[in-house]
């Protein structure tokens, strides 16, 4: 490792501009002649749109247009799509209702757009939006998943009778039933995984710019995957062919999954910019973010786990109802199926698993992937079950986990995943040591003497990251391949540009990706720049989500680097009159091994471009690209242990300690990894204690602002005690597993297990608000 190579705690290159306010976000961009969009949104959870009267608005000064859903239909703009086909257990395809970008006939959640005002300024657009009169006929609405599947419930889409999108199963039901029939003990648990609002710091935004002369669109937008956005906008929405649409995702202030998806607003902005002949900007406000950014989680689950007499797990049965909201968002269908049920084996040897997932429409904001996406729901369920089992079987929770850990790799689970490597005992040991697990009983007793309820909770999570092998996900219904691309461009002076299909919106790629180059060539990272987020610069890419950018994106860069180095080595050997096999790369030089003969990397680059003295037949230039398709998922895993105290008088939780022992494989920049874990833990703890997107029975959102939706603040969180155990991922040459989502996946169960341990009652739903904990303590 050099000072800036793999494993170095290099300070983030991008932070100078972020910290000094020089980042360039979509809303910072101003185009000549730019107009501003204000959407008119439904105040009703379910209603017919009877009439839209925009006559008064159109007479207001500065108003350019008022456009409606019917005009979208007239212009044959396509409906929003869901990109992962799921098949129900009866063999039928999932049942989807149409999702137009603006509703021409029926609105199905509060906040759904019915029309848009385009005006010379944002304020004029808002004024005019208030002058548009929309006549609605209210319809009965349903927000709760159980209410939605009852006979007689309000129906959202004629295509989906009973509001059911699919009834999907995985695993061997017969083998699972047989395991339960022979079980010595069965542990049962009902859990709700609470709905969350993602709340990236930067709200979504879009600027669409149509060039009539070239018939070309440019879209600046807050996207985690600008190429996927371009593909979907071109292939499905009839906006423009791919070569006539450039998508730029500049600095993006956080995504957490919510900026993967194509939303109505950017579609409408593109369409509107052609209609009005001027650029159209839309920047969402926080209320719009609460109402329209795809929410996360929202599962209701019943699970049962079978044990034999030696406390080995013999079977697992799971039935989950997943609330999808009013429409199927881009990857929503995959979240409670292939991203959830395939992780139900956890870190454990479970011979038989059967899971059934019923996807349900409700009159709420659509739900899709949110940091972890299915894996937090799986991990929370399994780790609550393990803790419940330990209490019921009267064994130490850590010991019960150890009894059931998978220790031989590779390990094929009964639910598709083949774990490649891991050492679950190592991370459990590290976490137990860090928190002094052995000393807990004494600490609990002392706390009790002081009038405090102290608890400890363990969570041993596993996730599948590095998504994904294209062939595998294609066979499971994915509409896209999940490889990544990279290009290495060496300039004649030897500086290097890395073009990547990954997108950084907080992950620090501009630093970590440079570290790979520094590691391989020994050049300073100041000589390397990372180019991303522009479909005109980077040919194609699948973007950043699912903790894939290092495991997949960086591996693509490595492949391109290897090609570039191979050519550079030939050039160097030719210049040094040496055998190519004798060339080694060190400290920015190509050396003939065992001699003092060397040529600096910039001279190799210059030689490639002057082309005065290249080996016979070699093309000039030094630029190589690669596509990398992973061979398997990666499996980050670890143990989180939380120790806390509950105030019996108020139900309030106070952290004593929180330790995380993660196995992410090789770390590129441990400082950035720690930051990722901190952020993930904050979200996991936020879900456990604070966050909940709530609707009333009529589908009205109750938590549409920070006055009601409790986002975690720094003082809600403990100082984290982080450590790493390492097994290198055998699936990629760098041995990387991914670290972006682990905290959000593993933390919630540790917190709830600790609170339930403290209060001595097992049934407690998230978020464990003080009110809820107090009522649980004092319940009969």
């Amino acid at each position, binding site marked *: 490792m050099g000072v800036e190579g793999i494993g170095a705690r290099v300070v983030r290159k991008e932070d100078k501009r972020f910290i000094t306010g020089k980042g360039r976000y979509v809303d910072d961009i101003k185009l000549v002649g730019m107009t501003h969009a204000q959407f008119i949104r439904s105040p009703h959870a379910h209603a017919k749109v009877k009439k839209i009267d925009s006559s008064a608005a159109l007479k207001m000064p500065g108003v350019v247009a008022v456009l409606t859903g019917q005009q979208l239909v007239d212009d044959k703009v396509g409906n929003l799509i869901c990109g992962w086909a799921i098949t129900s257990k009866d063999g039928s395809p999932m049942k989807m209702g149409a999702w137009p970008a603006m509703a021409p006939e029926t609105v199905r959640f509060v906040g759904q757009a019915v029309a848009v005002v385009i005006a010379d300024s944002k304020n004029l657009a808002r004024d005019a939006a208030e002058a548009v009169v929309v006549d609605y006929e209210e319809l009965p609405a349903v927000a709760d998943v159980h209410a939605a599947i009852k006979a007689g419930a309000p129906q959202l889409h004629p295509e989906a009778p009973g509001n059911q999108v699919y009834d999907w199963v995985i695993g061997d039901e017969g083998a699972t039933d047989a395991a339960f029939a022979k079980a010595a003990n069965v542990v049962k648990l009902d859990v709700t995984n609470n709905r969350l609002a993602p709340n990236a710091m930067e709200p979504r935004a879009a600027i669409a710019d149509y060039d009539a002369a070239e018939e070309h669109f440019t879209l600046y937008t807050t996207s985690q995957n600008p190429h996927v956005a371009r593909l979907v906008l071109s292939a499905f929405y009839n906006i423009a062919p791919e070569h006539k649409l450039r998508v730029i995702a500049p600095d993006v202030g956080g995504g957490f999954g919510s900026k993967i998806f194509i939303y109505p607003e950017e579609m409408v902005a593109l369409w509107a910019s052609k209609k009005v002949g001027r650029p159209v900007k839309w920047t969402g406000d926080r209320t719009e973010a609460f109402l329209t950014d795809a929410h996360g989680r929202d599962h209701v689950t019943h699970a049962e786990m079978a044990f034999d007499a030696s406390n080995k797990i013999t079977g697992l049965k799971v039935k989950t109802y997943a609330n999808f909201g009013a429409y199927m968002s881009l990857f929503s269908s995959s979240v409670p199926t292939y991203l959830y049920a395939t992780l139900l084996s956890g870190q454990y040897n479970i011979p038989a698993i059967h899971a059934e997932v019923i996807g349900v429409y409700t009159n709420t904001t659509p739900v899709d992937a949110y940091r972890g996406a299915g894996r937090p729901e799986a991990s929370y369920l399994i780790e609550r079950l393990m803790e419940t089992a330990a209490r019921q079987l009267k064994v130490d929770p850590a010991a019960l986990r150890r009894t059931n850990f998978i220790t031989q790799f590779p390990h094929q689970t009964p639910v598709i995943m083949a774990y490649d490597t891991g050492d679950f005992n190592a991370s459990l040991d590290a976490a137990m040591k860090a928190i002094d697990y052995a000393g807990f009983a004494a600490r609990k007793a002392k706390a009790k003497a002081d009038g405090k309820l102290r608890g400890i909770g363990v969570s041993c999570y596993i996730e599948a990251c590095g998504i994904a092998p294209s062939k595998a996900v294609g066979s499971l219904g994915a509409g896209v391949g999940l490889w990544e691309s990279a290009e290495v461009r060496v300039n004649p002076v030897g500086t290097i540009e890395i073009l990547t299909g990954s997108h950084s919106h907080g992950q620090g790629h501009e630093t970590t990706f440079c570290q790979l180059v520094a590691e391989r060539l020994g050049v300073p990272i100041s000589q390397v720049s990372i180019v991303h987020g522009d479909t005109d610069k980077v040919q194609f890419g699948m973007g950043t989500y699912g903790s894939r950018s290092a495991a997949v994106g960086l591996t693509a860069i490595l492949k391109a680097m290897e090609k570039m180095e191979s050519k550079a080595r030939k050039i160097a050997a030719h210049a040094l009159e040496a055998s190519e096999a004798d060339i080694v790369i060190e400290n920015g030089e190509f050396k003939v091994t065992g001699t003092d003969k060397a040529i600096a990397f910039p001279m190799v680059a210059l030689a490639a471009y002057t082309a005065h003295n290249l080996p016979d037949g070699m093309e000039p230039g030094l630029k190589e690209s690669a596509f990398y398709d992973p061979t398997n998922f990666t499996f980050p895993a670890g143990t989180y242990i939380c120790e806390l105290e509950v105030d019996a008088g108020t139900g309030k939780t106070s952290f004593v300690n929180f330790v995380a022992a993660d196995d992410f494989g090789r770390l590129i920049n441990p400082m950035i990894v720690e930051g990722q874990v901190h952020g993930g833990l904050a979200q996991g703890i936020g879900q456990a*204690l604070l966050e909940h997107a709530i609707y009333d029975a009529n589908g009205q959102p109750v938590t549409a602002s*920070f*006055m*009601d939706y*409790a986002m975690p603040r720094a003082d809600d969180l403990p100082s984290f005690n982080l450590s790493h155990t390492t097994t290198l991922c055998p699936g990629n040459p760098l041995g990387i597993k991914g670290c972006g989502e682990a905290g959000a996946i593993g933390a919630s169960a540790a917190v709830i297990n600790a609170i339930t341990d403290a209060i001595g009652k097992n049934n407690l739903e998230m978020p464990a608000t*003080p009110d809820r904990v107090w*009522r649980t303590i004092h319940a009969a």
Partner: protein
Amino acid sequence: MYQTTYHRASSVDEAASLFGKSSEAKFLAGGQTLLPVMKQRLASPSDVIDLGKIKDMIGVEASGDTLTIKAATPHYDVATSDAAKKAIPALAYLASLIGDPAVRYRGTIGGSIANNDPAADYPAGLLALGATVKTNKRSITADDFFKGLFTTALEDGEIITAVSFPVPAKAGYAKMRHPASRFALTAVFVAQTKSGEIRVAATGASQSGVVRVPAIEAALKANWSPSAIDGVTISASGLLSDIHGTSEYRANLIKVMAQRAVAAAG
């Protein structure tokens, strides 16, 4: 935000005069409620008259048995004021718990009590300490000032200039913060005046806004100690209930916060 006309008053008289000249003016102090409401287009004052830059309205002074906080003094200044910490430490502590740092740097005591949010901190302090609200027209006791949710005794155009607090024998404040807004989910201020009167006020709990809690006052009059409150029953009837706290929970919090406030008061 709708268009409005901003005025920066340099004196209380000028502010009052500006108010009289406009049709639908609002006074602006720290703007911690008014500005978000205006941004959401839920308020549309024709004129906004900024009181926050009037020098005579900023400052904390202790004199004899009275602590005076001028109306445009930000919470941060009160929380860190030596005079406030010495005279009524529970009140400086209260100010330190309001909102978050951004709110404490901008929000003012005058703005807080004029708004009289049912979960605001200051109303509990004023009511329990038996403070007097000074305006450009008169003096109003805290007992007469707070009139229910977002309602006060202030007349149209009347400007709060200061709040004066009699220094108590003992006082304490305990707050359960609302997890999202950081207002009081329920908070209780307890005070024992130098003449021996016991006053207890709860905020964030009642559907009527800040209220005295006679049952706890009676218990503390008999025995000034946390355990004296053990036997008190607080009815959940008339208390707020929402996603962050049922009325039963708030009833419990009134007791628990009162006990902790008494413990803090010593």
